[in-house]
């Protein structure tokens, strides 16, 4: 298993135009991914991405709820129409109050290839070897909503205590 990259390959049964729009139009991207981006994907641009529960899946929306409002800067690396979108971000930047700006980023690339019955989409996220140890070992559990969610619960609990 590579420690540096994650790769996903999927055949989407939809026209290339449709898939490209869902990926390259930052507001469409935001709807399925669950993020609000404050500008278009233009190579060289930096966008502010704020976690917003997805409108596509209620269960995932509930999972994302604790992170709503968490922001990260996305640096757009490449936009090649109908073919490739690439940006850099901070993987799993969900720890409340953490400043990720000076930490290494990973590169996320979406590559589209037209196939007989749809579009072959390959997603590669690479550069994990450069991610600091403390980010890796800040263990989180996807089912419980993650370590960040636990922290928020503790904070809420403490806030209750203060009021009493």
């Amino acid at each position: 298993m590579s420690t540096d990259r994650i790769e996903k390959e999927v055949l989407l049964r939809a026209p290339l135009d449709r898939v490209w729009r869902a990926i390259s139009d930052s507001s469409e991207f935001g709807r399925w991914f669950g993020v609000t981006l404050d500008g278009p994907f233009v190579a060289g641009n930096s966008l502010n991405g704020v976690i917003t529960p997805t409108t596509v899946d209620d269960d995932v929306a509930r999972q994302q709820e604790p992170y709503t409002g968490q922001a990260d800067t996305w640096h757009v690396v490449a936009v090649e129409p109908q073919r490739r979108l690439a940006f850099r971000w901070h993987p799993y930047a969900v720890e409340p109050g953490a400043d990720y700006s000076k930490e290494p980023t990973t590169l996320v690339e979406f590559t589209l290839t037209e196939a007989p019955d749809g579009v072959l989409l390959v997603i590669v996220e690479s550069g994990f070897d450069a991610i600091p140890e403390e980010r890796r070992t800040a263990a989180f559990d996807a089912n419980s909503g993650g370590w960040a969610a636990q922290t928020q619960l503790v904070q809420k609990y403490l806030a209750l205590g203060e009021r009493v």
Partner: protein
Amino acid sequence: MFDALGDPNRLRIFTRLCDGGPSSTSQVMQVIPVSRQAVSKHLSMLEGVGLVRSRKHGRERIWTVQTQPLVQAGDYLSQLSKRWDHAVERLRAFVEDPSSI
């Protein structure tokens, strides 16, 4: 940690310790063609990032692998990998739904 395993000699040492169990410095020396001093240096480096641990046994030092850092690193990637699986499924629902066109 991943840099520590990026060196072929250190990777060989680490693999030897994984396969062969706890080993002395002399035993580790048998797997790579370098000096005792160099082997000790590699082992110290692995120990520095938490991948091996050592204890003194008579005049020798016994080295044991620590798998926890690797397991945690694997967990991190597998969690993020799972997150991409979910994102891909949401994208599929989004683009394959005729009403979204």
